[in-house]
């Protein structure tokens, strides 16, 4: 019963967080020193498109509409929330008119999710493996060297690593492509291999950093856990090292990782945005960048709102999963 109450409580907090995030998004354009509509018009005309006064006026009105700048502040706010939460409609893209913004986002999302999910998964498995082994023998030379490498990798921002990788493997040694070009018929082998080939460097830049992070934290966890009484008892039961590691240390090391993950997700998302831009990778990050460059405010508002909602949702889901996995909280 208390579990149900917990879940409901978390969902209420989640709803409030989303409303809070949307409120922030609503007020950001209104905080600026410049009128976003005028800034946008300036951008459009600076790109050389000639428009007569009537056209400019029509565009101004439609922009005011998409920004929800019509009516009183309260009306604007309500219209904004309603549009995002209930219809999920961000209008047509201005730079790729008349494709709806949502369609562009839906096309980009699998790329971002695929990249982030695959690379974090690989990094997580590798990091746990190495972290567990080096935590088990924390004073062995190999463990120290592994930790030293991890310490040098983890603080590097993704985009810096992405830059270094692309300089090394695309400029100095021309092994991997500079920008992403996917080709091949749907579901063909050519398509799959082209995706893997093109995603390799962006994924590596995420894998390496996240790997460093897991090695550091899992090593610390493991070397603390193996001094716990239950690990000693398991050893005195005559259980082998492998069994103690997998059945006693690993599960206890994995649990708190869920909380770490919840705190890291936002930072990971930030990093992947820039990585995508640097590699021309067709995900959400590149879409945001395109929107900024083209002054496509519908697309910008749509992509930004969706990223904020997606990250908040992911964080809350992870937060919700934790107590379901920990029996000490599940059965109280």
């Amino acid at each position, binding site marked *: 019963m208390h579990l149900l109450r917990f879940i409901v409580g978390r969902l209420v907090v989640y709803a409030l967080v989303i409303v809070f995030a949307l409120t922030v998004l609503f007020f950001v354009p209104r905080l600026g020193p410049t009128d976003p509509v005028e800034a946008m018009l300036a951008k459009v005309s600076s790109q050389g498109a000639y428009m007569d006064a009537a056209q400019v006026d029509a565009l101004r009105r439609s922009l005011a509409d998409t920004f929800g700048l019509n009516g009183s502040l309260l009306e604007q706010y309500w219209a904004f929330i309603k549009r995002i939460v209930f219809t999920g409609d961000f209008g047509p893209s201005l730079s790729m008119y008349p494709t709806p913004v949502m369609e562009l986002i839906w096309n980009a999302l699998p790329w971002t999710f695929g990249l982030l999910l695959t690379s974090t998964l690989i990094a997580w498995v590798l990091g746990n493996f190495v972290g567990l082994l080096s935590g088990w023998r924390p004073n062995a030379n190999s463990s120290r060297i592994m930790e030293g490498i991890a310490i040098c990798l983890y603080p590097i921002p993704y985009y810096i690593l992405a830059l270094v990788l692309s300089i090394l493997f695309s400029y100095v040694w021309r092994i991997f492509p500079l920008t992403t070009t996917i080709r091949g018929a749907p579901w063909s082998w050519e398509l799959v291999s082209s995706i893997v080939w093109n995603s390799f460097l962006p994924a590596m830049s995420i894998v390496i950093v996240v790997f460093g992070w897991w090695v550091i934290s899992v090593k610390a966890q493991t070397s603390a856990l193996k001094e716990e009484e239950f690990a000693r*008892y398991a050893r005195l039961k005559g259980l082998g090292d492998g069994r103690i590691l997998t059945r006693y240390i690993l599960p206890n090391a994995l649990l708190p990782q869920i909380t770490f993950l919840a705190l890291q997700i936002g930072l990971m998302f930030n990093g992947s945005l820039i990585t995508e831009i640097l590699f021309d990778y067709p995900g959400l990050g590149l879409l945001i960048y395109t929107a900024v460059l083209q002054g496509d405010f519908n697309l910008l508002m749509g992509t930004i709102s969706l990223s904020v909602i997606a990250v908040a949702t992911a964080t809350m889901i992870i937060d919700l999963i934790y107590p379901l996995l920990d029996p000490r909280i599940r059965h109280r």
Partner: protein
Amino acid sequence: MITIDKVTVGYGTAGFIKAVDGVSLSIGDNEIVGIAGETGSGKSTLMRAVYGDFSTGLRIKDGTITGRFVDQKNGQVIEAPSSRFHRLWWDQMSYIPQGSMSVLNPLMKIEAQVVDGLPKRERGGSRADLRRRIADFLAGFGLEETVLDAYPHQLSGGMRQRVLVAIAAFVNPRLILADEPTTALDVVVQKKILLMMVEIQRRLRNTLVLVSHDLGVHYQITDRLVIMYKGQIVETGPTAEIFANPQHDYTRNLIAALPRLHGKRSVDRVGEAP
């Protein structure tokens, strides 16, 4: 069963800090031996050396500890020094730790923790079969089957300690070592656990070595008592005799420190017909 011959045990690889100093003792089949002494008397170190737990820098400097076990199945005799006892763990010998909050894996159900480490001979049959036998075994000590599906944090301190005794006993070993199994429990629960241990020993007719600083505990269940002081054995003999006629000053002080009721000891021996 266990022969301890002038053994000196201590810690440290570079320097050596002596904890047990030239102790000799022999532990026989089918008896309950108590080792008593204050903190730092070397009783826990001696127990670790007897169990063969040579981690964290523990080592034998002089003398030997040897064991002689008879395999229940094929009657084969196993003789080994304690440095090789780790092969006999959870087979010929098992261990009861002090049941603190963190001694059981917090993420594993009790059933899995009973099964984990069991020797092949005790595992026979299907999983359901094994569970049935464990449940019956626990029922014999007043523990319900639901305990098997519980996580450690759901059990009280006394329950947890009884589970630990059951885990060690279900192995059906020839030797059980218990390290302060009743410390930090109230007297009523303590008595229950001591009763359980005596019952198990009488049933299995094996050897139980009980380490405790509490002479009251030893008085209740041990057949033979060893008093340690500053790393040495100062007195050893049948428990009743030691209590009736203590030879060493230290023993006399320990006995005098026990609570008394109307001039008689406030505890009685457990597990014997009245």
